[in-house]
């Protein structure tokens, strides 16, 4: 029943709804809502109908299926621009894999100040920021607009997501590689 309710709400809204909002409206627990949403995502994928349920961060949205993109684009009259500059794409990639991520973490990975690029992505609606009370700073996530851009059900479907999502995992993989190299050194200075 909860699944049916959520399906209705996502249809009516048309826009993304957060798990929190869905909990309020259905008067169900967070874990229940979350599970029901995940089942919906799966069910819509398996159906191969004209629609999909997409996940981005903590919210879900009902959207047209990528297979009917042309028709949907004509009808929605929405301009979709695939043009992203290299720095924008780099930043988006890190936010997609690492989100929720802080600006400091982003800058640590890219090695450059990201204020203006972030502002640009926020304005384009590809990234959104929320204040994280525990970290006492803003954390960034990709939006539904970005997921819609990819045509995936959720960012977790990105290649190598598990490896690149978690910093510790990534460090471990990189360190293991370093150790392997050290066991078999190729030392040539200039």
């Amino acid at each position, binding site marked *: 029943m909860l699944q049916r309710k959520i399906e209705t709400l996502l249809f009516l809204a048309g826009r993304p709804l957060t798990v929190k909002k869905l909990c309020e409206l259905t008067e169900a627990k967070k874990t229940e809502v979350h599970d029901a949403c995940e089942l919906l995502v799966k069910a819509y994928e398996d159906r191969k109908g004209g629609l999909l349920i997409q996940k981005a961060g903590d919210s879900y949205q009902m959207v047209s299926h990528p297979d009917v993109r042309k028709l949907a684009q004509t009808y929605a009259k929405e301009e979709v621009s695939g043009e992203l500059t290299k720095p924008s794409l780099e930043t988006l990639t890190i936010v*997609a894999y690492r989100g929720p991520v802080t600006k400091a973490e982003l800058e640590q990975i890219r090695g450059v100040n990201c204020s203006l690029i972030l502002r640009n992505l926020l304005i384009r609606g590809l990234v959104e920021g929320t204040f994280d009370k525990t970290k006492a700073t803003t954390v960034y996530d990709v939006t539904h607009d970005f997921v819609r851009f990819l045509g995936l059900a959720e960012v977790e479907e990105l290649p190598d997501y598990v490896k690149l999502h978690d910093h510790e995992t990534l460090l471990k993989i990189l360190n293991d590689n370093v150790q392997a190299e050290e066991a078999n050194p190729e030392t040539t200075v200039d």
Partner: protein
Amino acid sequence: MHQVKISSFEGPLDLLLQLIEQEEMDISQISMAHVTEQYLRALEAADDIPADELADFLVIAAKLLLIKSRILLPQLQVEGAEEATELERQLKIFKEYLEASRGIAKIIHKRRFTFGRGKPAMVIEEEFSPPKSLTVATMRELFLGVLRDIEPIIALPKTVMERTVSIAEKIEAIRALILDQAIISFQSVMGSAKSRTDVIISFLAVLELVKQRTVMVTQNVLFQDISIKRLDTPPEA
């Protein structure tokens, strides 16, 4: 002399990675040391680096100098092993995401876009529903708040410049790391230094003079036209 051929680069790590890959080397402290001079030359040649990124390029330049000096002059027993390892790790992580971004570009290129509905389904009727407690006084406050939020963004280039200057402190820290232990060794090393190490040696030499407080160094453009002025005040004991 090795010719640097770098078409365009988006940031300091991007440049560094391109140089290493051009040499067909793996990411390591050795390969980073190997391309340090090329990195500095590429930086010197690029006059279009935006002001807000110059500071970031300088940070990496300083780290590279540290790594290079550790490898070339092991007798100096320069510290900073941790910082060197950190840059190596940072570059490897950057490379992972750079490759991932190419994957994302491919997905976008397939243009499997999806679309949502701009407005709620028709069952919902438009209805005038104002925010009950909103007053014109609150609106004025809100608007002033918006203006306050904009101020730092307009001021951004200025803060970036201040940051660039603060890199001097970063280099100062490295100077301390290297020179505190190495002043004497340097004077002997300098005489025999040939072109391969010219850049690092002159850099370090200048830092040494700065350390002795006999000169003041000013630099208008990165690694160009370093002007050295003798200070009138006597050196400290």
